[in-house]
Structure formats: structure tokens, C-alpha cells
């Protein structure tokens, strides 16, 4: 089977679906179009259509980017037990984690592109043709590492699916080293992203060594949460067998990550509140409001509460194995980490700004539309790739013998 046949067969899978599937696709398409129009408007008028200003120069887009890097990194939570410990129950579904990683990385790259003032000058980032400030700029590192991770996952997934479509097993000598490499790569992408922030002495809210560990812990909570929900959707809509032991193991790993997440948050809170230097202002703004500005306070307490409740739900095996509480816990931890990375990471660092000014940022409709479009693109990629992967995984698709061709 050549590449053309592969693409044709994939298209056949993608275009085959029931009403619910097509409604989903249409919904995503509508959101993408709606957001696409908003982006064209942003290109025409500039980033002033957002609410970002000099005082808060990174906000919604970069917050989402940071969260999604974590989601992409979290695919490794599936990979480690599957391939490092050869744990079959997860091995069957590890590819879904990689598909999630691909979708998440694409979303990350899109969020960066929509945040740029001059996306037409993106080629300036290409080493060789442009002028990539490597190794000086951590952002240059991030560009390289994210794209490397994307290529890595694309290679693994394409190979496995291609071979699967041919009815052959994947080549372990190619796949296993790549997959094993994706573990440090996943840790790498989120660490480099954390270093982006942690390396800035001018932003004391970020300039903490604890930032990279916090990022990794929150990623390992939220990414698998999405996977658990996706597994259950796939259970409903396809023939995939996902054993409960796999789900429980992932949930257990998440429980550890959640504990660490809360612990590291607690450590930061202690340090800031106990030493009570002027750097406390950012935490104060986040948790209590500052000088009459308190827009983020409800969200701060929401993410802490959601995180604690989710941890408790995942801590006890009874609630971990109960369908309702498990899903509730997944939603809660997803919300907690999303709020924390979006509003709890980027905005307090800029509020107050370097000269003590408070500008309270809230996203505009433009930003929300573009954000929704990018999320829809991610969901679309994930849906499409799953649509191709699932029939191969369940063995429903049997490779047609390829027409004999001269090799």
C-alpha cells in the first residue's frame, strides 16, 4: 500500500460516520470559520482587537499555549507504563495519547502564531534562512523542541497507522526508541516552556525554581484527565476495548501527580506569604485582590477548590473507580489546571506590572473566538486521527491485498 492508498483509505474512514459524528464535525467547522473570520479581523487591525496592552502583554493566547503544552507532554503518562514497563493494558491505547499530543502541539503552535504581531515574519525563526537566537533565547529552544516533539509523534503515529493499514505490525526497532525518546522529549517541552517564564528576573512571580516542577505536575494531572474522558467516549462510539485496569492505573498515577501539584502550590504559597516581601503582590492580587482590583479572585479559589476536590476523589479507590466521581474528578482537575495555567500563571505576573501599575485584563470576543477556533482545530485533528486509528486498533479494518506493483 503506497502513500496515496493510505491517504485514500484514511479519507474513507474519516468520511464514514453517523449523525452524531457529522454534527460534531459541523460544529467544529462552524467554530473554526467563526474564529477564522475573527483572526482575519485581527490581522487587519492588529492585536489591538485583543485586550492585551503594554502592561499585560501576554494573556489569553499564551495562557492557552502553556496549558496545551502540558497536555501534549502528558501523553508520556501513558507511554511510560506501556513501553517502559511493558504493561499491555495501556500499550494498546498509548497511540491515542500520542494522537492527543499531536493535536495539542498543533494547537500550541497555532496559539503562538495568533499571538505574534507579525506572523508573516515567522520565517525569521527558521535556523539558516532566518536567524534563530539559539542557544541564547529560551523561546528559540521552545520553537525547536516543540517542533521536534511534533515531528516525533507524527512519525510514530504515521508509521504505526500506515503499517496497521497494511496489516503489518509496526517496526519495533524504529518505534520503540522513538517512543522511549518521547518520554524525555515530553518532559523537555514542558520544562523548556517553564524555563521561558522562570528565566525572567524582571517578573518575580515567574522567577522561581519551582515553576518547572509545577508545570510538570499539573500537566500530568490534566493531560490524562482528557484521555480518560476520551477513552470513555470511544467506548461509546466504537469497538475499542479499554480495560478498567488501564483506566485505574492512569487514575492512580494522576492521583500522585495531583498530590504533588497541590504540594508545590502550597510550597509557593508558604514562601510568598510567610516572607511577605513586596513580591507577594502578585499572589495577593490573585487570591485576595489588590487596591480594589479583584477580578481573578473567584477563579483563583475555584482552581484551588477544584484541585483539592479532584485530588480527594482520585485519592480514594472507591471514588476513583466510580464512573460518576471519576469523570467528575477528571472535569474538576481539567478545569483546575486550565484556570491555573490560563489565569493563574500569566495574568498575575503582569498585575501589577514592572512599574507597579494594575491593568485588569479580560479577554475580548475576538480572542475567545480565535481561541475557540484553535481548540476546534485541535479537536478536529484528534477526531480525524482517531477515526483513522480506531478501526485499525480494533482490527475492524483488514488490509486489502495491495495490487501487485514492481517494488
Amino acid at each position, binding site marked *: 500500500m*503506497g*502513500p*496515496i492508498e*493510505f491517504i485514500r483509505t484514511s479519507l474513507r474512514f474519516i468520511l464514514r460516520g453517523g449523525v452524531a459524528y457529522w454534527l460534531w464535525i459541523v460544529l467544529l467547522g462552524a467554530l473554526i470559520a467563526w474564529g477564522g473570520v475573527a483572526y482575519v479581523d485581527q490581522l487587519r*487591525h*492588529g*492585536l*489591538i482587537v*485583543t485586550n*492585551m*496592552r*503594554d*502592561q499585560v*502583554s*501576554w494573556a489569553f493566547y499564551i495562557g492557552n499555549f502553556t496549558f496545551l503544552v502540558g497536555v501534549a507532554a502528558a501523553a508520556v503518562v501513558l507511554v511510560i507504563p506501556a513501553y517502559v514497563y511493558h504493561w499491555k493494558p495501556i500499550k494498546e491505547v498509548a497511540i491515542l495519547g500520542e494522537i492527543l499530543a499531536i493535536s495539542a502541539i498543533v494547537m500550541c503552535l497555532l496559539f*503562538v502564531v495568533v*499571538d*505574534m*504581531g*507579525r*506572523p*508573516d*515574519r*515567522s520565517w*525569521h*525563526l527558521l535556523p539558516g534562512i*532566518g*536567524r*534563530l*537566537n539559539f542557544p*541564547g*533565547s*529560551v*523561546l*528559540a529552544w521552545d*520553537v525547536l523542541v516543540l517542533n521536534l516533539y511534533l515531528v516525533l509523534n507524527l*512519525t510514530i503515529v*504515521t*508509521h504505526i497507522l*500506515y503499517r496497521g493499514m497494511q496489516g503489518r505490525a509496526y517496526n519495533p526497532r*524504529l518505534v520503540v526508541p522513538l517512543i522511549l525518546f518521547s518520554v524525555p522529549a515530553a518532559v523537555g517541552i514542558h520544562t523548556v516552556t517553564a524555563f*521561558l517564564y522562570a*528565566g*525572567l*528576573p*524582571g*517578573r518575580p512571580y515567574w522567577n522561581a525554581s519551582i515553576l518547572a516542577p509545577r508545570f510538570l505536575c499539573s500537566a500530568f494531572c490534566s493531560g490524562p484527565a482528557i484521555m480518560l474522558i476520551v477513552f470513555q467516549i470511544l467506548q461509546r462510539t466504537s469497538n475499542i476495548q479499554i480495560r478498567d485496569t488501564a483506566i485505574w492505573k492512569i487514575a492512580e498515577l494522576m492521583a500522585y501527580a495531583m498530590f504533588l501539584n497541590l504540594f508545590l502550590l502550597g510550597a509557593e504559597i508558604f514562601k510568598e506569604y510567610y516572607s511577605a516581601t*513586596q513580591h507577594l*503582590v502578585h499572589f495577593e492580587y490573585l487570591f485576595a485582590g489588590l487596591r480594589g482590583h479583584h477580578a481573578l479572585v473567584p477563579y483563583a479559589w475555584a482552581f484551588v477548590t477544584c484541585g483539592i476536590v479532584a485530588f480527594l476523589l482520585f485519592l480514594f479507590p472507591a471514588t476513583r473507580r466510580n464512573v460518576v466521581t471519576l469523570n467528575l474528578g477528571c472535569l474538576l482537575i481539567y478545569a483546575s489546571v486550565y484556570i491555573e495555567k490560563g489565569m493563574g500563571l500569566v495574568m498575575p*505576573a503582569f498585575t*501589577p*506590572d*514592572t*512599574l*507597579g*501599575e494594575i491593568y485588569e485584563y479580560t479577554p475580548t470576543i475576538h480572542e475567545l473566538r480565535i481561541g475557540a477556533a484553535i481548540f476546534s482545530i485541535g479537536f478536529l485533528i484528534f477526531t480525524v486521527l482517531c477515526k483513522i486509528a480506531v478501526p485499525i486498533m480494533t482490527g475492524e479494518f483488514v488490509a486489502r491485498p495491495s495490487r501487485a*506493483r*514492481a*517494488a
Partner: protein
Amino acid sequence: MANTGTDDGVSRRDFLTAVGLAAAGVLAGCSPEVREAYLQKHFLELTPEEVQHRLARLRADCRKQFGRDVSISAVPARPDVMFGYALDLSRCIGCRRCVYACVKENNQSRDPQIQWIRVLEMEKEHGIDLERANPYYDPEKVPDVDHFYVPVACQQCRNPQCTTVCPVGATWQEPDGIVVIDYDWCIGCRYCMAACPYGARHFNWGEPHLPPEELNPDLHVLGNRPRPTGVVEKCTFCIQRVRTGRYPACVEICPVGARKFGNLLDPESEIARILKEKRVFVLKSELNTEPKFYYFYGV
């Protein structure tokens, strides 16, 4: 891995060729000026001839945009010059004439408004405390009793954080100490703005609007040439003035003589004298940025 080349139709190589040809086709379809503007290299990679070519193009662009002739230079740094700045906090009265003189001299966008200098009103009781600073003061008269004033702009640090973090190297420090930006190379990621501890860098969030009659036609390509949308800008110590020996606009307009400027390497300059005879300090010294913008108290 997917088979290449041998089977029916499109191989990976063919696909990439097609993409490349398509891109080339798009570029070929543009006018030569547009293509040249899009593909221009980083300023530091230009030969002197190419620099002149770029200046000519910028002159033509200004002509088209403003209907006026401008003179635009790329005069380089002089040897044995390291610019320094000192601001006398005992004299600044917070009148903000420096802010607007800078806007006039450096062709900032009027709408949306960009100002490179920000004057902070501080309470005398608390001294220099950035958490209590107020840039929006607007009393009837200044100086207001109980307050003093601290103007802040780019500190032209010796260890600038902004130049380290730029992913494309669009901002760098010139040999005479001025941190400059190649406005044609900046991609607008704003990492430098996140990195700057002094809030000195400003972004063209919207299309900059400058009425043609307010254009200052004496330009420097790394300084006050009119900027496009989506790029970062900041104080350049009036590079178009200081490299020809003049003072920055803010120094000249200050009615109380609070602003001092000169060559740190010249022991006879007033800035060198200030460092020697007055007690200077810098903002946020613990960050190790080593600014070349000093503050002192003359009386």
C-alpha cells in the same frame, strides 16, 4: 515509514517540490518592492551597499505614506563612546515635557498612543517604591507637595534581558551602548516586553497613526523611523541625534535641567562628573541589569 517514490503518483519529494514551487510562485506574483521588503535580511547582515538600498526604500515608503521627504541615516556608533544618562530626582517636577518632546522627536504613533517615557509620581513618605507609583497623576500644578517624580524609560542596560530573550535576534546592543531594534526583523512575539524589568518596551498593538505634518523628518533606521504594526519599540537615547553629537530631545526640553547625558568614557563630560561627584543609584539593581541610566539627587 511511508514508501517513497516507487509507487504510483506522488512521493514525498514531489510533494515538497510542489509546495516549494507554489511558494515561489506566490512570491513571484508580488511586485519586486513587496518581495524585497518581505525577504529583507537582518540589519546586521547587510553589506553597506544593502544598507543604502534599504534606506532608499524606507525613504520612498515615507514619501508614499506621509507625502514628505525625509532624510534617513544609518550612522554607526563612534569609537570610544559609551552613552550614559543621569536624572536629577531633586529637580524633576513631573511636568511631562520630556514625554511629549520624545513623542514629537521620535515619531511615535499618536493614536493608539505610545509614549516611551513614563513619569511616576512617588510619595515622599515612602521614597522610591514602585508599588506605590502613580503614572496617571494630573494635579493642577506640579510639583505636588508630598510627592516627587521619577521618569522611567529604557535603561539601556549593560546586561539587557531583552536582547537575550529575543528568539530572532531582532534587538541587540550597539557598541556605543544603545539597545536597538531592527523594526523590519521583529516578529512581534513580545518576549522582550515580558523580560524587561522596567516596562520600557512598547508595542504597536494597532496600526500606528502619525499625522504627516507631525512627522520629524530626520530619521535613523534603528531609531525614530516610523514603525510598522506589530513590532516593539522603545527609547534609543535619540540615536538620530546623539550619534551626530546632539543631546536627546528629553534632555533639551527639560525646563529644570534634571536630565544629563553624555559619554561615560569621557572624564570631562557631565555624566562622568556626576558619577564621580554625586551619589548615583539605579532601579532594581538586584536584577544585575546594570543600567546606564542613573538617578541621583543634585541637592
